[in-house]
């Protein structure tokens, strides 16, 4: 095998080197592009920067694909391939020899540039942004995705005879890309990529034994090819959807409450994502023309959420983070940064929980803020406790929110001071808010959710502006959003049902809105009855894809979510709740009824079709079983992946007969021996020519 690996390495090393240079240049460009101008870090930080991830999303897959093709296609010359296969080593060794060399070449071509970028981002002096290992995760996921494309190319190049054999492995890789891009958790993305690589590798190993058909491959490889082909169909569907519906189709139909700039709630009605009307809470049309549907959005106050519950948490986290592993916010986020370039930029590092200040001109660490206070660069940090949250409170200042205390950090002066709470209480949440109705006032506050009241601090000098007592049952309406007017003398608290209450119950509960003075008196109060839930509208492709999905996957996921919810998984319970929410339950029920029916129909068609095409009963039943489990995908796999018997007319009965079978299924006739015409020359052997 070593000779084979050596040969592959020598043959393709130049291409790997070229790819390394091209990818390295592109990644470097992506890493440095716009890094000095994105002061809000909206486009990500170093290795999570959008421009860099754009390169890693497409670069490694392209390299993997080209390397896979380069290793196989030039060898596929009929005689060269025959000479290669005739070498006295197992064909599996031949495949894995190529694959090992390919992986090494891939690591040179895609891994080395990436490591170079990691070194650049991790070494002080290059970027005015700190480096944490978590920033590498999206790139690592993309690198593994590139391997999927490598094995997909090997498989597609090895197989021939059917378009599906070439197309489906590539679309399986496309489907994997969609998954890796959408997955929120790094582990999910990487495991999916690893499993797909393994499936493609096993399918490729089998393809070297029989390039044209399933028959002749090891059973494990046949199974792997079916899995790959199934995901290939999924990828094809993803791709088709992307073409049919390229953007996010926001087609919300229903109503929602908003707060207008006069402090009154309005009801906005949407039809397929289009705002069609605005109403007062009593159902009348607002008299002021500025609340007409085309202008009302410019006259709305936006509220920020200060808490998701008050009191007993029922297992809900105080500060919920639903970050995506490809977002740098998952690993660090700016603290106290502002649009203009600062001499120092501060970042909150999620692990270890510390704040790091980076000197912008020198691009090195200027100071660290940890549980002990400010530390010089190089000091071993002591992380903040897990229940301490960081809330930016304006330029060069952060609020350290503990379980029942507040501390104010002045990042420029390097001081930390306690901020007294108006009442001793646990802290349930914190948020910033500002008056968006008058941009000139620049009034910004920080709202702290306490047990019985909301404490409001001015971001400018951290003085307590107001203590707003709750006038609702916050045990059940503990999801509180807050905003204020531009004069700073009116505060608006919007009470929504607490997050731990089940979705179904929440949908029947009203919202409350209180307009309050700084002294905590309620000026106006509104009860907002629950809005009717319109069943979510499905597009045609959503409708079809829901009903034609695999029953094995549909019921399997349902069972998984149910068991997970019973075992206490919040994530799975949310997923299960979403399926049985009021506006979705009819769809779920309909799908649960129709999916098995469609699957049965597909299985019936497959069975009939297979028998008609001269598959044996066992083969036909196997394919029908697959259609029963996978619905339309099973039927399509049967059509495009199965080894269809080739038929020719029977010489005796003229009916079509499979060429592989010794006897005609209609007349049981054997194949006739070649006819003799008297010109045959044989000596001692007996030959089956018929006279």
């Amino acid at each position: 095998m070593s000779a084979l690996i050596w040969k592959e390495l020598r043959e393709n090393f130049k291409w790997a080197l070229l790819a390394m240079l091209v990818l390295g240049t592109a990644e470097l460009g992506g890493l440095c592009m716009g890094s000095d101008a994105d002061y809000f870090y909206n486009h990500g930080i170093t290795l999570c920067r959008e421009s860099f991830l754009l390169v890693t999303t497409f670069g490694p897959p392209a390299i993997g694909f080209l390397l896979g093709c380069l290793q196989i296609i030039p060898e596929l010359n009929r005689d060269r391939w025959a000479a290669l296969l005739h070498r006295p080593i197992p064909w599996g060794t031949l495949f894995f020899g190529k694959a090992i060399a390919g992986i090494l070449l891939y690591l040179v071509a895609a891994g080395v540039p990436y490591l170079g970028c990691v070194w650049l981002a991790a070494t002080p002096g290059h970027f005015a942004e700190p480096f944490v290992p978590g920033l590498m995760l999206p790139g690592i996921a993309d690198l593994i995705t590139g391997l999927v494309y490598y094995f997909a190319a090997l498989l597609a190049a090895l197989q021939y005879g059917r378009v599906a054999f070439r197309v489906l492995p590539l679309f399986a890789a496309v489907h994997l890309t969609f998954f890796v891009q959408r997955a929120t958790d790094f582990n999910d993305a990487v495991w999916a990529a690893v499993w797909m690589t393994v499936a493609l590798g096993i399918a490729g190993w089998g393809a070297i034994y029989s390039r044209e058909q399933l028959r002749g491959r090891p059973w494990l490889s046949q199974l792997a090819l079916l899995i790959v082909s199934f995901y290939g169909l999924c990828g094809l569907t993803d791709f088709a959807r992307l073409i049919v519906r390229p953007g996010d189709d926001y087609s919300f139909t229903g109503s929602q409450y908003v707060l207008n700039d006069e402090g009154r709630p309005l009801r906005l009605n949407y039809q397929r994502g289009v705002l069609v009307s605005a109403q007062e809470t009593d159902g009348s049309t607002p008299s002021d023309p500025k609340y007409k549907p085309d202008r009302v959005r410019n006259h709305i106050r936006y509220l920020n959420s200060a808490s998701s519950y008050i009191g007993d948490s029922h297992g809900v986290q105080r500060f919920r983070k639903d970050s995506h592993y490809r977002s740098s916010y998952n690993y660090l986020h700016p603290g106290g940064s502002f649009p203009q370039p600062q001499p120092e930029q501060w970042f909150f590092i999620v692990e270890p929980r510390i704040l790091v200040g980076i000197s912008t001109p020198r691009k090195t660490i200027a100071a660290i803020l940890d549980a002990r206070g400010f530390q010089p660069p190089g000091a071993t940090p002591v992380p903040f406790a897990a229940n301490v949250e960081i809330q930016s409170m304006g330029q060069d200042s952060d609020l350290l929110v503990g379980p029942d205390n507040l501390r104010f950090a002045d990042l420029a002066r390097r001081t930390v001071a306690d901020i007294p709470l108006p009442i001793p209480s646990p802290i349930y949440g914190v948020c910033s808010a500002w008056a968006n109705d008058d941009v000139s006032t620049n009034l910004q506050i920080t709202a702290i959710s306490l047990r019985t009241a909301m404490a409001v601090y001015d971001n400018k000098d951290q003085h307590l502006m107001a203590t707003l007592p709750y006038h609702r049952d916050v045990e059940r309406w503990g999801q509180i959003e807050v905003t204020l007017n531009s004069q700073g003398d009116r505060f608006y608290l919007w009470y929504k049902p607490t997050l731990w209450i089940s979705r179904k119950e929440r949908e029947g509960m009203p919202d409350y809105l209180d307009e309050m003075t700084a002294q905590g008196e309620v000026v106006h109060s509104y009860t907002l009855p629950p809005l009717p839930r319109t069943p979510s509208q499905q597009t045609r492709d959503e409708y079809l894809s829901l009903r034609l999905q695999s029953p094995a996957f549909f019921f399997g996921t349902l069972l998984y979510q149910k068991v997970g919810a019973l075992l206490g998984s919040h994530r799975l319970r949310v997923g299960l709740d979403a399926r049985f929410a009021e506006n979705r339950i009819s769809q779920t029920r309909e799908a649960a009824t129709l999916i098995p029916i469609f699957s049965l129909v597909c299985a019936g068609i497959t069975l009939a079709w297979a028998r008609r095409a001269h598959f044996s009963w066992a083969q036909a039943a196997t394919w029908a079983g697959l259609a029963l489990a996978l619905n339309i995908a099973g039927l399509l796999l049967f059509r495009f992946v199965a080894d269809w018997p080739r038929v020719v007319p029977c010489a005796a009965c003229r009916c079509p007969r499979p060429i592989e079978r010794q006897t005609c299924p209609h007349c049981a006739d054997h194949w006739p021996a070649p006819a003799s015409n008297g010109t045959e020359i044989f000596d001692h052997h007996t030959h089956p020519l018929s006279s």
Partner: protein
Amino acid sequence: MNMPPVIEIDRLTKYYGTREIVRDLSLKVSPGTIYGFLGRNGMGKTTTIRILLGIEDPTRGSTRVFGQDSQKLAPETRARIGYLPEGHHVYGWMTVKECGRFQASFFPKWNQEIFEAVITHFRLEPKMKASHLSRGQRAGLCLAMTLAPEPELLVLDDPALGLDPVARRSLLQSMLYVTRQPNRTILFSSHLLSDVERVADRIAVLDGGTLRADCTVERFRESLRHYVLKFDAIPPPAPALPGLLESFRTDRELALTFANATSDTEAQLASLRPAGIEPVQMTLEDAFVSYVGERGEKTFFMRDLEHK
């Protein structure tokens, strides 16, 4: 002692799509035999060889080499088979020496002396790059790589294809080296009948995917007869006689080629009342061309030219 055959092909049938390439082919090759595998292009020779080596699978029937099913040839069995595919492909970026070293790494039994002897015979330098070799030199290099593992069975697929006479002769000489070893078996397909005549003990002829002849070279040559019948007037059309391969009718002559002609055939020819019957000795090449060429009657009349 009756030794088991090295190659056994039993009712082999191969389709590409629904096109039949090889039909019901049965053949046995005994140890120590040099078998010429003949046929026109596209008649199924290469396909048969590839099925024999397990590179392709048969549609029906079976093939065995050294008693092992071709579809399950163990690497050890493959090491006993030298295979030279047509086209003489080598990795162009390797030198002659590297080609040898690369090939040697796969074979447990590698005779470097044979390798060097063959490349010297073809005037190849170890440092020459494979991509710079002439077609004949490349063939020599491939042959050296095929012969050096000292295979018990040598399968050559049209080894002389595209070579000039000198290179062909060199190739043949090298190939004959193997035949000097006892019990070495060679199966080679070729179009070049002079080469076949020189080395083959037996031949098998494929025509339209069907085995039409399997015999010694002498038997093949003897089985084909060519008669020239001279007439005083325009000859009659060729009669439909058993074994008639082709006929050629001119203004005064009728030339007929037969397979398996008997005394009955000659008697029936005499019944045409020609002025004379002249049996003509055929070379193997003529015999082969007649055997696998277009069947039926061809004519050539001077009067047709005059009319034009």
